[in-house]
């Protein structure tokens, strides 16, 4: 117990009551009290400015002030001092009002036994301290919230009612006075395309008890779009059942715009790189197209000869025409594969089969492989779950890496050349790793350090963008692209991609 006496300012105009209370406090087991008695409110206010007191015991009926007004006037002068109101026997209602006006407690005079009174005094002090601490923390929070313009919301799981801070209303452009607290009202503000995702995320958090995050767009009444980042945490009751989700919302429109600008710049660069790659492969492309073209010419000439001859065979003509159609389709497929590779398109995000992308990338480079007489060794892990990615961009990374590998090996004689492509699920379980391994010339230490720099190249033809773009594509997908020299010569390029949520193997 505190050894220092508790300094009490007793404001009481009835001397008998004052003596009684002083004695009651002195006799209590709740520590030592040092009581100063004044009989007027203005004296009390004066004394409070002169020396510190721990608590004021205030009779509301004084010569210079009556009723609740006494309390209000004192509070106005001294906001932080713990205060206990003394009321008469018939005045219990007044006590309750006093509590609502900033008193920590009230005591009915003549009713209060010694220990009870002392305890009430002590508790009032404690209560006021806790209140002050809470207020300070509230203020700090409010200051923070204001500074970062965070909106705070709370979603009651049982009633489905939402309560929120004014900032949320500002972000959602909703009038806080008319907001009915219903989830659906809030959802009406969200862009129709995003509602489903937000709903699912909230439900997932509710079921799993895990933190909730989501980014979505809201549409203001003026039609403008605003990006919101919302985070939430599930609050559990004593039985570990979720009772409410509390969280924050911030506007991230600027960030989104910046990201979008960055993405579109990246997309431009990536497109340039694809066109460039395709340019480098143009002769191979011509070769590839000449195959079906010569087959078509051959079949057509057979048709012609058969049609011109008296002994022409109908079945031969039919067969040849069928083959012409097949070969034409094959030529068309080559062209559309190339076109889709160089086409400009908005980045997509879908669940893709990485093994299939590896196979398709190899088919784009098929003629280059044949030219260099390389039969790649392909080791694709079976049953890999899908990854969330833009298929065109990831294909581009693969084509870049494989093309680099082929170039690195072009100086060497064919028999020693080895190109390996591997996919595997990483030990962390949440991502897959794709590796392109060559037995080529490798890179010097100096080049190694600058490998991913833009416009750095050791090739006469290259633009020096391939690896830089590949890395930004991979990192844009939340993965990592790394380069390591092979112990037995050549290089190994590996990149990771996260497995799509809920992707089944």
């Amino acid at each position, binding site marked *: 117990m505190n050894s220092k006496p508790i300094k009490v300012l007793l404001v009481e105009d009835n001397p008998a009551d004052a003596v009684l209370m002083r004695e009651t406090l002195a006799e209590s087991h709740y520590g030592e009290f040092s009581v100063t008695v004044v009989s007027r409110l203005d004296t009390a206010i004066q004394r409070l400015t002169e020396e510190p007191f721990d608590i004021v015991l205030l009779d509301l009926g004084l010569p210079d002030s009556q009723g609740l007004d006494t309390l209000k006037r004192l509070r106005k002068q001294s906001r932080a001092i713990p205060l206990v109101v003394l009321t008469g026997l018939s005045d219990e209602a007044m006590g309750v009002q006093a509590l609502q006006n900033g008193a920590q407690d009230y005591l009915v005079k003549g009713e209060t036994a010694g220990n009870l009174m002392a305890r009430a005094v002590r508790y009032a002090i404690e209560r006021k301290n806790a209140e002050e601490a809470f207020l300070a923390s509230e203020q700090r929070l409010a200051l923070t919230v204001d500074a970062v313009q965070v909106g705070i919301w709370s979603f009651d799981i049982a009633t489905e009612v939402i309560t929120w801070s004014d900032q949320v209303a500002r972000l959602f452009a909703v009038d806080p006075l008319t907001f009915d607290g219903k989830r659906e009202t809030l959802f009406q503000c969200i862009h129709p395309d995003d509602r489903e995702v937000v709903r699912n995320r909230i439900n997932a958090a509710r079921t799993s008890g895990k933190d909730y995050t989501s980014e979505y767009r809201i549409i203001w009444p003026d039609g403008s779009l605003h990006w919101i980042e919302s985070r939430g945490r599930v609050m559990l009751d004593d039985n570990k059942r979720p009772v409410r989700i509390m969280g924050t919302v911030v506007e991230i429109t600027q960030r989104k715009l910046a990201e979008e600008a960055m993405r579109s710049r990246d997309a431009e660069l990536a497109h340039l790189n694809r066109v460039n790659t395709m340019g480098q492969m143009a002769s191979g492309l*011509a070769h590839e197209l*000449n*195959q079906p073209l*010569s*087959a078509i*010419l*051959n079949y057509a*000439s057979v048709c012609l000869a058969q049609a011109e001859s008296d002994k022409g065979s109908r079945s031969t003509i039919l067969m040849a025409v069928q083959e012409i159609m097949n070969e034409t389709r094959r030529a068309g497929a080559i062209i559309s594969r190339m076109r889709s590779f160089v086409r400009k398109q908005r980045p997509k995000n879908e669940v893709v089969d990485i093994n299939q992308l590896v196979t398709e990338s190899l088919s784009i480079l098929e003629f280059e492989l*044949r030219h260099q007489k390389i039969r790649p060794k392909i080791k694709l892990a079976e049953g890999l779950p899908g990854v969330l990615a833009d298929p065109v961009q990831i294909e581009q990374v693969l084509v870049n890496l494989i093309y680099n590998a082929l170039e690195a090996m072009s100086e060497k004689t064919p028999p020693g050349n080895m190109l390996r492509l591997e996919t595997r699920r990483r030990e962390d379980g949440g991502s897959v790793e794709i590796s392109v391994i060559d037995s080529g010339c490798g890179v010097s230490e100096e080049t190694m350090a600058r490998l991913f720099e833009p416009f750095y190249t050791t090739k006469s033809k290259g633009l020096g963008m391939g690896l830089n773009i590949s890395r930004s594509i991979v990192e844009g997908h939340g993965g990592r692209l790394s380069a390591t020299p092979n112990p037995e010569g050549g290089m190994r390029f590996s990149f990771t991609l996260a497995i799509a949520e809920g992707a089944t193997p």
Partner: protein
Amino acid sequence: MNPTTIVHIVDDDPGVRKSLQMVLESASLAVKVYESAERFLEDMDLSISGCIVLDLRMPGIDGIELLQRLRTAGHEIPVIVISAHADVPTAVRSMKLGAVDLLQKPFEPKALLEIVRRAVQKSVEINQKRAEENAIRKRLADLTTRELELLRLVVAGRSNKQIASDLNISIKTVANHRANLMAKTHALNAADLTRISTIAGIRPQ
């Protein structure tokens, strides 16, 4: 019935291979197809006349290398090179290795057919010539030293009388030897005998 000539097609592209086969078969040529140079080397039978239609760019052993191997092994079969992407150095190399022609894909099937026919014809001629050479060599191997001596003098354009004096024998003996020589070499006359000696590589004395 066994064909008298065969056209071998070596191309890794199934479309090209199959369509070429159809073109050539429609022109009544016997065809065998191979998907790779390795396959051809395993299965080839070059005892029958014919030609090879050979793609240049193939995985594994490519067209140039196959051509080189055939020539090193002494095969003279005519080779027509086809390529979807022929650069000048490759064209020069293949011609130096004795390719009869080089066609850029896509080529006119008629043009190929003509070239193939000529190549097959050439192959038949080569084989006939080889056969004749072998027969002649065999016949000349039966000649006696004296007959061989006589042959060199005949080819050099000496008359019987001159030969008799050269060899210090009677004209009658020269006439006898000469009759044997004609019979053994199946030569029709002195000019034919000269032709046979040239084929056999016998130089006049």
